[in-house]
């Protein structure tokens, strides 16, 4: 064997190993998503068959129709949009300047508050707030849910923004300051426009986390104020054996989030990995 063929064989082996490891890593992820889709497009007779049916002979969209017919999905969708939208918006309004301030002043102790808020179990906010909202009479609207979502979305936005503003060169703002801009103007007209990509990442991550959140909604939501995850969970308890509609509902809930992830996947990876160590 000449050294050259040996090298070639070695490279081929390396490549095969890499390909195999990618396949092994992705298999569980792909399988669960595949199975979800599969359950959602099969008739119940196929879903409860043994051995399980992987490729149905007959596909159906009945399950999706059922989800929308048997529960006010559009109402729940609107609830989720209101909660997630307002929580994200407020988080941006408060969190972007805070991230800027912390990054510029290097006030890392303040950022410790963020870690503390992550450590606090979600339920510990719920008992007192639940009692408080009952006294004020806010139970039965979506606003308590939106307010509690701030607890998770605000730290995310601040966290991402600190990471972003720390890497931003500060020469431009200094130039603006020398030209007589106030601190606020330097932020508003110089730093903020430059930070747009970071704001997008923060907004989307905050949106996703809030959309996916279950526990706050589970405690605060009444019949008409359920968010999507809560609505789907309730379907589970009432129709545990209708697998088709359940899987269809699962898809409906996560579809917006999956789409968002695809749109900004690159930025998410960057935002999370740089924010991660900050």
């Amino acid at each position, binding site marked *: 064997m000449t050294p050259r063929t040996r090298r070639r064989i070695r490279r081929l082996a390396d490549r095969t190993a890499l390909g195999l490891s990618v396949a092994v*890593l992705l298999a569980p992820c792909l399988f669960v998503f595949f199975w979800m889709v599969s359950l959602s497009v099969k008739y119940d007779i196929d879903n409860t068959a043994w051995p399980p049916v992987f490729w149905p002979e007959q596909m159906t969209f009945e399950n999706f129709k059922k989800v929308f017919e048997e529960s006010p999905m559009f109402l729940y969708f609107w609830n989720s949009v209101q909660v997630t939208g307002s929580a994200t918006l407020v988080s941006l309004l408060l969190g972007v300047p805070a991230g800027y*301030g912390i990054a510029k002043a290097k006030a890392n102790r303040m950022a410790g508050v963020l870690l503390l808020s992550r450590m606090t179990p979600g339920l510990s906010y719920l008992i007192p707030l639940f009692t408080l909202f009952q006294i004020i009479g806010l139970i039965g609207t979506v606003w308590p849910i939106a307010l509690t979502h701030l607890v998770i979305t605000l730290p995310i936005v601040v966290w991402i923004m600190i990471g972003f503003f720390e890497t931003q060169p500060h020469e431009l703002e200094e130039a603006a300051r020398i030209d007589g801009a106030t601190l606020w103007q330097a932020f508003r007209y110089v730093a903020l426009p430059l930070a747009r990509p970071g704001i997008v990442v923060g907004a989307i991550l905050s949106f*996703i986390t809030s959309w996916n959140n279950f526990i706050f909604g589970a405690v605060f939501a009444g019949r008409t104020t359920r968010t999507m995850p809560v609505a789907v969970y309730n379907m589970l308890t009432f129709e545990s054996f209708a697998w088709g509609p359940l*899987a269809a509902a699962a898809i409906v809930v996560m579809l917006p989030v999956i789409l968002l992830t695809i749109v900004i996947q690159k930025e998410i990876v960057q935002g999370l990995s740089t924010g991660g160590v900050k």
Partner: protein
Amino acid sequence: MVDVSMAEAGAGPVPQKGVEGERRLRPYLLFIWPALIVCSAVIIFPWLFTVWMSLHDFRIGSPMTFIGLDNYKDLATNRRFLESIGHTFYFTVLSVALPMVLGTLAALVFHKKFWGRGFFRTLFIMPMMATPVAVSLIWTMMFHPQLGVLNYLLSLVGLPPSQWVYAPGTVIPSLVLVEVWLWTPFCMIIVLGGLASLPSEPYEAALIDGASQWQMFWKITYPLVAPFLVVALIIRTIDALKAFETIWVICNGGPGTASETINVYLYNQAFAYNQVGTASAVVVVFFAIIVALSLILLWARQKAAWT
């Protein structure tokens, strides 16, 4: 998290208390105040209220009486609560260790350049973005002992069927499986960020000196990526301790109380039995456990950095 990184990054002066630090901070306080006020309103008020309630015998709908530390004393002898601590640790150790190991391996793979890397990486991070409740629902159906697809997959490779979440002995490992599926991508992303920040010089030098791949990994990659691993470790530990959705949706803490973690016990006390006083005491103990564990990890990290 900032605290975690600044010391080791060595970038920029670590802020000192005193005149210098304060002068730099003051003009920026206006930017930070609004968020800080909201944060403390939403965090500190519940905290004070929780501690106060934990000192009372309080059920929703009946008058509250001050009982001092009795709630805590009851917890110390409450078998169900003590068992839930055991479940929590069992669950946490597994669902921290496995995603960390798998996530690191995945990061090493995705750090290599190959065709379609971006696409495959997107696929790989999908689980952590997917709605946990919906994911748990799918897994519940997959775990079904008679009709579930997982037992069918086991039979394909010649393994006997498992009871999965329907037997006390297998419920926690089965739940960990879901947790691993959901959060391995998170560990991968953090470690990947670490790998991306590695300088190339040490590797070039090592290559010239004839180091093996294995040596390069342990002597260069591992020490440089270690701070990132610790960040992932701390966040993952906190999140695993607090895990709720998967356990609650898939098996409700059952069968019996076999998978009742502290968080699930807490939920039951507060919202199923309306025992707000007891639940508040559980919150205080639970938070103490989380903070203690995080501090141990942070401390271990600093110790490791100095040796």
